[in-house]
């Protein structure tokens, strides 16, 4: 029971920080699940985000379901998801009530607030980017053999970047992730650290 309650508390927090949608939640998920408590290793975190992005549904929702299942089975996944989806709904309900009291003024206030938040959200995205990109940067030079997997990954990043400029992938970034995953799968022998 304890794990379920903690899961709910953590994902309620993640939900409340998720201004600006999907990708901006990544630093919150990372902080709560990797930094603040050792629930996920960096590798597990990376896999969670990848899985959450490849499948339909908001990234935060998918993360909650996955992590919840990992740590608390079916009920963990259910209640973590409920906490993530439900907490903002409470906020919305409150705002809806406020809006029913003074609608036009409230609306423009909310709109301005949201627009004002965007530079900070951009800051969050930088953090998200760095959290995800840092592990891919080679840290020590041991030998070319050891470096091969890392260089392969960097090359993959480069290829993905080029492809992402194409029109098809602009509309469906999930495809890039899926294709990159398949490439990774095919290169399994090459990616094993010797």
């Amino acid at each position, binding site marked *: 029971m304890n794990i379920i309650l903690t899961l709910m508390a953590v994902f309620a927090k993640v939900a409340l920080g998720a201004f600006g949608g999907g990708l901006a939640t990544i630093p919150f998920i990372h902080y709560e699940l990797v930094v603040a408590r050792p629930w996920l290793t960096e590798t597990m975190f990376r896999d969670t985000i990848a899985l959450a992005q490849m499948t339909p549904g908001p990234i935060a929702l998918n993360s909650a379901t996955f992590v919840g299942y990992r740590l608390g089975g079916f009920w963990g996944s259910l209640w973590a998801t409920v906490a993530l*989806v439900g907490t903002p709904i409470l906020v919305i309900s409150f705002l809806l009530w406020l809006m029913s009291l003074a609608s036009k003024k409230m609306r423009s206030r909310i709109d301005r607030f949201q627009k004002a938040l965007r530079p900070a*959200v951009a*800051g969050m995205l930088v953090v998200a980017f760095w959290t995800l990109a840092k592990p891919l940067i080679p840290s020590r030079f041991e030998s070319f053999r050891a470096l091969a997997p890392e260089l392969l990954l960097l090359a993959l990043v480069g290829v993905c970047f080029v492809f992402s400029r194409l029109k098809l992938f602009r509309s469906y*970034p999930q495809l890039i992730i899926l294709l990159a995953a398949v490439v990774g799968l095919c290169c399994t022998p090459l990616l094993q650290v010797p």
Partner: protein
Amino acid sequence: MQRLWSLFVRFFRIGAFTIGGGIVMLGVIEAEMRALGELSDEEIADMIVLATAVPGPIATNLSFVAGRVLAGWPGALVSVIGTSLAPFLTILFLSSIILRHLGNPWLGSFFLGASAGVVVVVGNSLWKMIRTAVDGFPQAAAFVTTAVLMLGFGVHPFIALGAGALISIAGESLRGSGEGESA
């Protein structure tokens, strides 16, 4: 009852087949609301403002608001569940498989490859966001503050976000009052 069911089905379809994350879902839900023909453009715009200003997944927030407007609180509940159900079941199913094959090198390489793609997707999104949102000094200050607080000082994301937001909002209102004075 019939109304609630059709609402549920509508949002279930959106949740199940919309690939592309929050912004795409926003567009899809908006299109569906227009197609319904029951809401004015202004009402739809209000819904979107509310759903995006509030923290949390845009898709479920918007589903909740739209469902509420269309069919009251039951409608809201039904719409949120509809949107969330397919992703939830999908991940549940995949999770049970993944957890059984955790040490598998093929699975590991699969996700490793995926993470390369994710870096690119996040990078592109970041670049787009910087180009549109950081268009002035207070915005740049807010942006840098949030990033530095987290990356340099490891503060809780809430604090970093809050600090950046304060700077940005302060900058906005200063700019507003400045223009007021010169006018």
